[in-house]
């Protein structure tokens, strides 16, 4: 992990207990050494409310990924890569 990456805020993955695509998203970010945290909206009411606020209640399922304020719906690698590049996270591809 380079110095720049360490100063970036972690990417947030909003997930549920049985969401396979959420686990994939985490593996994907881990594989790129992107700092990330998972927030389980099934078990954490604050996380649920936080997600509803970020999506203005227009929420259609998990994962939802917050990359420095850019909200990505679903495990969409192209959009994730674009947002990571835009915000200067390490990107090893």
């Amino acid at each position, binding site marked *: 992990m380079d110095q720049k990456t360490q100063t970036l805020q972690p990417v947030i993955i909003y997930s549920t207990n049985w969401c396979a695509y959420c686990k994939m998203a985490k593996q994907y970010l881990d594989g790129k050494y992107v700092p990330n945290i998972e927030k389980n909206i099934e078990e954490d009411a604050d996380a649920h409310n936080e997600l509803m606020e970020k999506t203005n209640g227009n929420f*259609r399922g998990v994962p939802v990924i917050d990359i420095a304020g850019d909200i990505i719906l679903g495990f969409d690698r192209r959009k994730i890569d674009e947002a990571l590049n835009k915000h200067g996270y390490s990107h090893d591809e």
Partner: protein
Amino acid sequence: MIKSDVDILIIGAGPAGLAAAVYAARAGRSVVVLEKALMGGQVATIDRVDNYPGYQDGVDGMSLASNMVQQAKRFGAKIEFGTVTGLENDGNTVRVHRDSGMAITARAVLIATGSSYRHLNIPGEKEYVHYCATCDGTLYQSKNLVTVGGANTAVQEALYLSGIASHITMLVRSYIKADDILKDKLKEKVEAGKIEVLEGWRPTEIMGNDGAVTGVKVANTNGETKYIPTDGIFVFAGMAPNTDFLKNTAIKLDVDGRIIADNYLTTMPNVYVAGDVRSGAVRQIVTAAGEGAAAMTKINHFLDRTEA
């Protein structure tokens, strides 16, 4: 010596691709598996698998998928994310193009891309429909839901959702076509008032307001229509093969878009197919894994014969 980046490239990391990867790696071949979205494939989204041999008490799909991935890695298979956009035979090797713009060459390719949720193509689907009960079902605690579909997966997922939601209305285009064991469980839920089954009805439009579903317009085979208020809708209307990336290639598809093969060999030399994406496949987890092993055995024999 035939030069290539790898001996074998496998497209798709579901049960077929991962079983094949085990057989390739154990035969001493260099093997790369490219997966577009979900390691383990659709299996990883199923809450419970009870018909895969070796798991006497059943297993959750995510664990089964993860075990398959780890097993293939243990023997040296390289499994990575990647989307394939096309492929062509270069003579002795196959050149596989990736969305990153890079290409990879292999002496043999196995297509094991499986299938994805079939869409309804009705208004409101893009905005409101869920396809993964285990992912998104939890959002509908004590709410009313509508599900679409009447085959094994649809019944299994409706049963799963009935443990979360207060009531489920199942829309079934024709009639329930599930295994008896699932039909029995469904009957119990119907008798308990948790699930209502509407056979002969299909959705025609999903209505919503401010990002939330309000109801579903439905029609039956007699042309009657009605409106069902609901809080959410899940669609389990079967699967469509993942073969869009083959449209401009020499690989022949059947009328449903599945790959035509003779003994796992497609109409493109050096390119094989296994699992749900193969025309004529039984489309079960266990048969997909079996096809992966069988196809890779063919590939290993082919590579042995063409070894320089």
